[in-house]
């Protein structure tokens, strides 16, 4: 019975060197890769953001107190100087809104890409959904950053 020697790859072996060089690769098409990574990271972040929002609304605060006043206490009133606490909640909800909208839009893009093989139809629905999602995001951000217009909504308590 002959002994089979354990293969040893010498450092100066030409294909070994090329292999090591191949280990630093820059993939060409970045968009789908970035979109895929975004879905993972934003999805993970949304689990915590959405759960903490739910916990805040339903466990810490009572369901019966989900009023405009409760919202104003976190988002502030238009025209009034916002406290640091209000800025914290504004940032929290801006991140929640932004991530949710972008995560949703990218998911929708994938579904449309899968099922609408006729390009003009795909692009038509893409433009429509992008416009809708941008509108909702901008409207939400405007309320968040400018504060709630309490007079217009007729809130019971204006602090």
């Amino acid at each position, binding site marked *: 019975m002959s002994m089979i020697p354990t293969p040893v790859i010498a450092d100066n*072996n030409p294909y*070994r060197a090329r292999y090591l060089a191949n280990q630093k690769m820059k993939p060409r098409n970045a968009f*789908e890769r970035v979109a895929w990574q975004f879905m993972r990271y934003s999805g993970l972040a949304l689990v915590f953001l959405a759960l903490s929002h739910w916990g805040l609304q339903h466990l810490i605060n009572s369901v019966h107190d989900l009023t405009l006043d409760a919202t104003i206490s976190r988002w502030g009133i238009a025209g009034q100087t916002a406290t640091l606490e209000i800025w914290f909640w504004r940032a929290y909800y801006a991140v929640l809104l932004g991530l949710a909208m972008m995560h949703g839009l990218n998911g929708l893009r994938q579904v449309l890409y899968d099922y609408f093989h006729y390009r003009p139809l795909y692009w038509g629905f893409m433009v429509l959904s992008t416009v809708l999602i941008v509108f909702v995001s901008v409207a939400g951000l405007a309320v968040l950053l400018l504060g709630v217009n309490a007079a217009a909504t007729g809130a019971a308590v204006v602090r």
Partner: protein
Amino acid sequence: MKVHFKIKRFNPEKDKKSYWGEYDVEAEESDRVLDALQTVKWEIDGTLNFRRSCAHGICGSDAMRINGRNSLACKLLIRDAVQGGKIVVEPILGLPVIKDLIVDMEPFFAHYRAVMPYLINDTEPGERERLQSPEERARFDDSTKCILCACCTTSCPSFWVRGDYVGPAAIVQAHRFIFDSRDQGAAKRLDVLGEPEGVWRCRTVFNCSEVCPRDIQVTQAIGEVKAALITGRID
């Protein structure tokens, strides 16, 4: 035991639409589904068409959808397939049906060719051969087991809705060479798999790993290719 077979039939020369052919077959529990199909063809209805070559789970030509699940007819036993005395057999999904259980595999093999499933190495192999340590060989051992039966690709919902998705089988084949220390074509293959119709169409449904008759961890292989694309490293 008596097994009632419901087989999807289609003859493009005669039929406008596919229909169900129903056959009662006397079979042993330990028989394979392929044996029963052969009984149908040889003793009941000679017009039934299906592919099979080696009949021992190696050539991968008799992949079909048996009771809603892709499988090799030559590897699946009657007792494991039968549900309420019935076995439903259909051609694999997502590829054009030529006749009965025979599908056109060309779109599948076009994706296979796209990932360059051969060793790429321009350098001289040296005195004897290109050496590789057992660890380096073990790195891609799982993906060498693929027999190109198309069970995985045709069980993938992403492939069903969009046939231009390269599909799990082609990714497994690319994985086999990308992680081979003797190969130098990883960057080229990752370029192909990084395209919109490449690995990113995978939604981690796990159907592929579930049905692979060779028990390849297909979803894991796809995940490793995704990781290679993200990090730019193959280790």
